[in-house]
């Protein structure tokens, strides 16, 4: 767990870096998530005060966007593309395989905390699908063997 003082200090530093920007909330939230791995509830009042908006508005923004997490993810995040171009190359079968193999559904984390599985709708790798992004690394032309090797390394 993060200690409250560190959290508040880091949040203040992030706020200070962005407050002069027009429409600073998204850059702030991206940095908070990059720092802590998710958007801790405790940060919300601090962000709201700095931007002179309500805590509800900050919560509204955090909850609107798929990228922002309200709880930490597993140690590794596997995002499989579910969009049409990847579907045309077998993405549905591949994601069914991944869910069965990991024993989780979309947005869930394996019980040992190793892998969080998420859908992504397009990585712009549409002529070499199915595509995925694993811990920020882009991967194309996936098949079950390639995916099994990746998941084996993460587990």
């Amino acid at each position: 767990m993060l200690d409250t003082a560190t959290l508040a200090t880091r949040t203040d530093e992030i706020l200070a870096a962005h407050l002069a920007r027009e429409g600073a909330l998204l850059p702030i939230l991206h940095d908070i998530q990059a720092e802590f791995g998710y958007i801790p509830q405790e940060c919300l009042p601090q962000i709201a005060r700095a931007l002179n908006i309500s805590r509800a508005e900050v919560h509204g923004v955090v909850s609107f966007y798929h990228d922002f997490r309200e709880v930490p993810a597993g140690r590794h995040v596997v995002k499989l593309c579910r969009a049409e171009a990847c579907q045309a190359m077998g993405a549905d079968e591949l994601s069914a395989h991944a869910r069965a193999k990991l024993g989780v559904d979309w947005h869930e984390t394996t019980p040992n905390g190793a892998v969080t599985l998420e859908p992504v709708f397009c990585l712009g790798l549409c002529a070499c699908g199915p595509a995925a992004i694993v811990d920020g690394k882009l991967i194309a032309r996936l098949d079950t063997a390639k995916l099994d090797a990746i998941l084996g390394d993460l587990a």
Partner: protein
Amino acid sequence: MKIYLPLDSVAVALGADDIAAAITAHASKTGAQIELIRNGSRGMVWLEPLVEVETPAGRMGFGPFTPADIPALFGDLAQHPKALGLVEALPWMAGQTRLTFARCGVIDPLNFNDFNANGGFAGLTRALDMASADIVAEVTASGLRGRGGAGFPTGIKWKTVADAKAAQKYIVCNADEGDSATFADRMLMEGDPLTLIEGMVIAGLATGATKGFVYIRSEYPIAIEVMERAVLLARANGVLGASVMGRGPAFDMEIRVGAGAYVCGEETSLLNSLEGKRGVVRAKPPLPALQGFMGQPTVVNNVISLASIPVIMAKGAAHYAAIGLGRSRGTIPLQIAGNVKYGGLFEVGFGLTLGQIVDDIAGGTATGRPVKAVQVGGPLGAYFPRALFDTPFGYEEFAGKEGLIGHAGLTVFDDSADMLAQARFAMEFCAIESCGKCTPCRIGAVRGVETVDRIAKGDAAAIPLLTDLCATMKSGSLCALGGFTPYPVLSALNHFPADFARSKEAAE
């Protein structure tokens, strides 16, 4: 020896970074003198990672490249097992009219001098000597229409912003390229980012805007990094700053990153997101051109629209307008994707038929099975059957067939595709990505999934219900998400009725 290896997401996703490291290691081991340049992609995805070597005859291509192919690069190049010949002479390259993508894959995207030496800033230099109204007139005369999908004339949008009186105006580049099968924005930003910056600066000169934003989706980490570095480069070289190129007005810009909401590709939703709000769609009017970012006059243009401005200014509106078909002028970067033999980006004048694109350029499916359907224009675009393959690629031509060209992405499906499943996915996607503001989209998409499921269970009475629901969504939604989701659904239903004729027994 000068070696090129793309930094483009496609090449990286297929192992380019490992190859780059291996080439450098090999060279230092053997003592070979090399200069490794990470360029953009040429757009031939089936050949990626595509390594190029500069020779007196031109750049020779080798691909798809693997680390095992490295040692042979230092022998007789013509005998290399992956030798493709001169890249520019390959049929895919020779068949194109590369205007917007002329430098993509050719230059080092983050080398200012390389950009300059290859025609970069020619358009901006000309624009700096022109009156604002003349720049707008030139863009209008080019016939350029919004490449994001809506097809609205760019010059008219600019004129509205130019004529608006305000202390602060903005140029917002929509780089939230969320449609499946589209990657032109990504390729351009990764392969020739200074062209986009040049286009945005010209837009600023034309409209009196002094501040720009590029809103890039978070799913494009490499494009974000390259664009951020390109902005620093442009600022360091005086293109951006207090005076454009030392003789123009002020213009500066920022890169902003989205947060995984598809609907933020819609311009008003994007503006809300940029302002730090929920990406909820705004009702129009007021038009963003009059009340956009922070309530000020704002040009919101797609990456490709803005990146096409420099070449229009450099070569003149007449040169651009001479290419194309009907009211679709200039070139369009076709993005050929899904189940295709030869996929990638192919920039060409409007007017090729869908059949020419799918059969001749893409070479049919990767699986070798017959093409069943092509979805044109992303997740909100219609599924076209082979019977409509004679449709010429143009805004009006596709609208005439109950479809749209959108951002010019094409997803090819072979005969194993289940069009009922595709219709269901279109509704499911709309339900996931709806911003929730208007009822037809928010509720309609959920009901749409349920209705398709009833049809799948053999309930034919649900078919007219689905058609009726689509009519409501089409005319009752605030933006294209709810309004266009009926395109894939109804085209699947109308062109592939057999996939919707499920018998009760089979379902049970």
